[in-house]
C-alpha cells in the first residue's frame, strides 16, 4: 500500500457504495482494455506470420521473374529501351482501404487492373511467347509486392495501439492490485 495512491475519503456508507461502483467501472474498463490488447496481439501475430510467408514467396517469385527476363532477352534480343520509352499509364493500380480491428483502423492495399496492355505487340516478330511469360511472372511479383506493402504498413499501425493499450492495462492492473 503506497502512500500516494491513497484516496482521501470520508468513511460513510454512501461513500462505500460510491467507491464500489467506481471499482466496478474501473474493472470493466480494465477488462475491455485487455480484450483490445488481446485482439490486437492476435492480429499482430497473424500479420507477422503472413509477412514471413510472403517474404519467402517473394524471393522465389523474383528469382523466377529475373530468369524469365534472361530467357526473353535470349530469344527476343534487347527490348528494354523500347519498353522504357513507351511507358505512359499504369496498368496495375492500388486502392487504399481501411480495416477496423477492435477500434483501431489499419490501412489495407488492394490492387486492380485498369486499361489495356500497351505492350501487346512488342516482340511480335520474335520472342512473343517468352515476353508473355515474362509479363505474367512480373505481374505476379507486383501483386505479391502490393500484398507485402499492405501487411508491412498495417504492422506498425497495429503495434502502437497494442503497446498503448497493454501499457494502460498494466497500469490499471497495478492500481487494482494495490486497491
Amino acid at each position: 500500500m503506497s502512500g500516494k495512491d491513497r484516496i482521501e475519503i470520508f468513511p460513510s456508507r454512501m461513500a462505500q457504495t460510491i467507491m464500489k461502483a467506481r471499482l466496478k467501472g474501473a474493472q470493466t474498463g480494465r477488462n475491455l482494455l485487455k480484450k483490445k490488447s488481446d485482439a490486437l496481439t492476435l492480429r499482430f501475430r497473424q500479420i507477422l506470420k503472413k509477412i514471413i510467408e510472403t517474404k519467402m514467396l517473394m524471393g522465389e517469385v523474383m528469382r523466377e521473374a529475373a530468369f524469365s527476363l534472361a530467357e526473353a532477352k535470349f530469344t527476343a534480343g534487347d527490348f528494354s529501351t523500347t519498353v522504357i520509352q513507351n511507358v505512359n499509364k499504369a496498368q496495375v493500380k492500388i486502392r487504399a482501404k481501411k480495416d477496423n480491428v477492435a477500434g483501431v483502423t489499419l490501412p489495407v492495399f488492394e490492387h486492380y487492373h485498369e486499361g489495356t496492355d500497351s505492350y501487346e505487340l512488342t516482340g511480335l516478330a520474335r520472342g512473343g511467347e517468352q515476353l508473355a511469360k515474362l509479363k505474367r511472372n512480373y505481374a505476379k511479383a507486383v501483386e505479391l509486392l502490393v500484398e507485402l506493402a499492405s501487411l508491412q504498413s498495417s504492422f506498425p499501425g497495429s503495434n502502437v495501439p497494442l503497446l498503448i493499450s497493454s501499457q494502460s492495462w498494466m497500469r490499471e492492473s497495478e492500481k487494482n492490485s494495490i486497491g
Partner: protein
Amino acid sequence: MLEGAELYFNVDHGYLEGLVRGCKASLLTQQDYINLVQCETLEDVKIHLQTTDYGNFLANQTNPLTVSKIDTEMRKKLCREFEYFRNHSLEPLSTFFTYMTCSYMIDNVILLMNGALQKKSVKEILVKCHPLGRFTEMEAVNIAETPSDLFNAVLVETPLAPFFQDCMSENTLDELNIELLRNKLYKSYLEAFYKFCKNHGDVTAEIMCPILEFEADRRAFIITLNSFGTELSKDDRETLYPTCGKLYPEGLRLLAQAEDFDQMRRVADHYGVYKPLFEAVGDGNGGKTLEDVFYEREVQMNVLAFNRQFHYGVFYAYTKLKEQEMRNIVWIAECISQRHRTKINSYIPIL
C-alpha cells in the same frame, strides 16, 4: 554455270573473304561451351574467354563483372570487325553490307522516333542505339515534331527511305502503332534485300536467297503465333508477312486465316522444309519452342554457307553466327550469375 565468279571474285573481294573465313574459324566450339557451362562465377567465364579468340577483351573492366558489361564488350568487338570489313569493301559488296546494316537501322529509327515523340533527350537514346545501325543523320532527329516531319527532314536521306515509301503514305505515319511500323519496314527491307541478291545472281543468289526465304517464312510463322489473342486483326497481320519466301502466296493466305497453333502446323505440313521443323517442337514446358527450332535451322543454314566459295553470303552468315554466339554467352552468363542452372544447356550450339 558459274559466270566467272571463280575468275573475278578474288580481285575485289578475295582479301575480305579470306579474313572472314579466319574469323569464322575462331567461333567458339562445343568444347568451349562445355567449359563455359561448368563455370561457377562470371570471373571464371572471363578466364575461359581469355583462352578463345576473345582474348583480354574484359581486361579493362572494373569489378564487379556484370553480364551487361560482357555483352557490351562482345558487341564492340563484333562492330570493330564489321566496320573493318565494310571499310575495305568495294561495290557491290558495300551495297550488300549496307543492306545488312539496314535491319539495325530500322530498330534505331523506331527507337529515335519513339524518343522524339516522347520528347526524350536525343543523347540518351543515341547511347542505346545499336552501333551497327548508325547513320549520319541520327543526331538530327530532335528537330522533328511529328513522324512525318521526321521522315521528310531526316529519313529521306537514309537507305531506309524506299522502305518507308513502300509501306505507307506520310499521313498514316502518325497514327501507326510503333510495332506495326517496325514490322512493315522490316518486310520491305527483306523483300528489297532478296531482290538485290537475286539480281546479283551467281553463287551469292544461290546461298543468300534460301536464307532470306527462310527468314521471311520464319517471320510469317512467328508473327502469326504471337498475334493469337491480341487485337491484331487478320488483315493487319497479312500486311506484315514478307512475300519473298516459299510460303508466298498460298501459304501466306492460309496463315492469315489461322487461329491457333494447330492450324498453323497444318499450313506448315504442306511444305517439305517446314514439316520436320514443326515436328521437332515440344509441347508446353520442357520441350523446344518454335523459336528455338527456327534459331537452330538458321544456324545450320549459316554454317552451310561457308561450304561454297566466292560469294557474299559468308559475311552475312558470319555476322549472324557471331550474334548467336553472343546470345549464347550472355545466356550462360545469366544462368551462372542468377544461379539458375537448370536450363543452362539451352543455348544453340553452332559448331
